[in-house]
């Protein structure tokens, strides 16, 4: 474990992952008209520019709406589906489980093009909801895995005990199952939310000029030298991701999810 090859790879991967994060955060507090490295001075100007730029601010608002729509759709579809697949034995269980991961098994650009073709046919382009539906479908498995891993670690005997003590099915669900899987629901929700606000390829094919989401607006402004407000937006995304990840790890369900310490 202390071999030089392992140490070297670890150091390299840490650099590979951490340097871009640091660069974005530094750029987001840099002074000066243009983004350069190292920055000419430090200031909160990029964030002020972000607030002052109506177009970027509107795009941020749209991305947040998409994020909330994605969360709502994922919860309605994902939580019951995860419960069904983990707690019940029924015909077509395997096939339906595979069907649920269709969104991650298809290359993203193909899924995005399928949404484009379908929603064009339906005449639904130009609204935000098709974007949210598309994003939900390709990220649904993340919420389902998260809920399912909570369900696996919840002893089914607790539910049986509640039933033996005379609790109705509804009562058992509300007071035993639901609190038991809450960490999984919460971490899955956070995950699909940040994936929703930062999604790019589906939005790229489904957006029309009046409904640019923030990643699309950022992409458009990166054709030339990127203006400071883009750095501020990127900084916000990094902060959101860091916050969410720290919450996930403190929930312990993530550690369980990837590293089941039994």
């Amino acid at each position, binding site marked *: 474990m202390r071999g030089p090859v392992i140490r070297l790879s670890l150091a390299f991967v840490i650099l590979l992952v951490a340097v871009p994060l640091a660069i974005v955060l530094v750029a987001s507090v840099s002074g000066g008209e243009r983004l350069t*490295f190292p920055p000419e001075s430090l200031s909160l100007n990029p964030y002020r520019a972000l607030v002052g730029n109506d177009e970027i601010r509107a795009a941020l608002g749209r991305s947040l709406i998409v994020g909330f729509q994605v969360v709502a*759709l994922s919860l309605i579809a994902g939580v019951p589906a995860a419960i069904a697949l983990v707690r019940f034995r029924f015909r077509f269980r395997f096939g339906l489980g595979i069907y649920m991961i269709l969104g991650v098994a298809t290359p993203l650009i193909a899924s995005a093009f399928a949404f484009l073709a379908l929603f064009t046919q339906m005449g639904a382009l130009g609204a935000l909801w098709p974007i949210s539906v598309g994003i939900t479908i390709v990220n*649904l498995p993340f919420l389902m895995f998260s809920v399912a891993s909570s369900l696996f670690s919840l002893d089914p005997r607790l539910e049986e005990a509640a039933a033996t003590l005379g609790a109705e099915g509804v009562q058992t669900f509300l007071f035993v199952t639901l609190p038991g899987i809450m960490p999984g629901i919460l971490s899955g929700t956070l995950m699909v939310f940040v994936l929703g606000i*930062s999604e790019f390829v589906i939005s790229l094919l489904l957006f029309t000029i009046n409904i640019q989401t923030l990643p699309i607006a950022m992409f458009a402004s990166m054709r030339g030298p*990127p203006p400071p407000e883009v750095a501020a937006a*990127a900084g916000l995304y*990094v902060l959101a*991701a860091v916050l969410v990840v720290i919450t996930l790890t403190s929930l312990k369900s993530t550690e369980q999810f990837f590293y089941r310490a039994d």
Partner: protein
Amino acid sequence: MAETYTGLRWRLIDGLIAAGRVLRPGRIAKAQPYLLLLPAVLLVSFLAVGLLWLGWLSIHAYDTFLMQAGKISAEQYALLFEPPSGPFYQQTLLRTLALSLTVTAGAVLLGLPVAYVIIRTPSRALRVALLVLLLVPFLMGEIVRTFAWYLILANRGAVGWVASLFGIEDGGLLGTPIGVFVGMMQVSTPLATLLIMPAMRRIDPNLERAAATLGASPARIWANVIVPLSWPGIVAAIIVVLLLNIAEYDMPAILGLGRLPFVANVIGDIYRLQQNLYLGSAFSLLLLVVSTLLVVVPGLLFLGWLRFRRARRAAA
């Protein structure tokens, strides 16, 4: 106030219980898992129907001048495979596959040791810190990762600055395959690590100790113990990372300066510049088929190999 709230809450729960009693009897109970799955199945059907619709569009002729669809024909696939346009599309597909496979290989090779450190370290702090660091790139979004690497690789970026400290004046790494490769590695390596971990965790540390006691070098322990026992995780990592990279858009567009387009970029242009849903459908489906073959064929070979090995061991 609090009392009315609790009262209301219990009345709501009583109502739910009553509803449950009415709905519970036999036939509904049997349908319960299907009812629970219904919203998700309906939602995913947008994608399933969309993919079928792609198939239907892709087998139609399309007049790009009049912007009119024609009869059923193999015209779109001919455009993809036959000159004059065919070689460009094939070259794009090959470039996408070559770079994706390289990134996947790199990510798995780097992911193995990192996963090993996370699994075997006695320090919980190091483990959590590494997990946090590995999850952030995945959640910060493609465009932000691309922006970060743009700042690093651009002409007056961080790499250029470090190089200038050593007296090297270069034009930055934008527009080179190296730039695109590094950018894609930032999310691929953490993902590969996270997917290898569960399989690696099941390896009994005593196996390594036993191998070491018997005189095996660290390299030999890796080749004969750790890697073979991590196969399920490695296979999962290869599949997921490959699928992710094959659809990459931002890195080739921004870091590659559009000089090294991937399939996704070309599909995007076919729609945005030519407004041609028909050709785009055909190319999307071609990518779907190729990626499925890339995943399924080695997967089947791997399963067959496992079964063969088990049978041979049972015979011995």
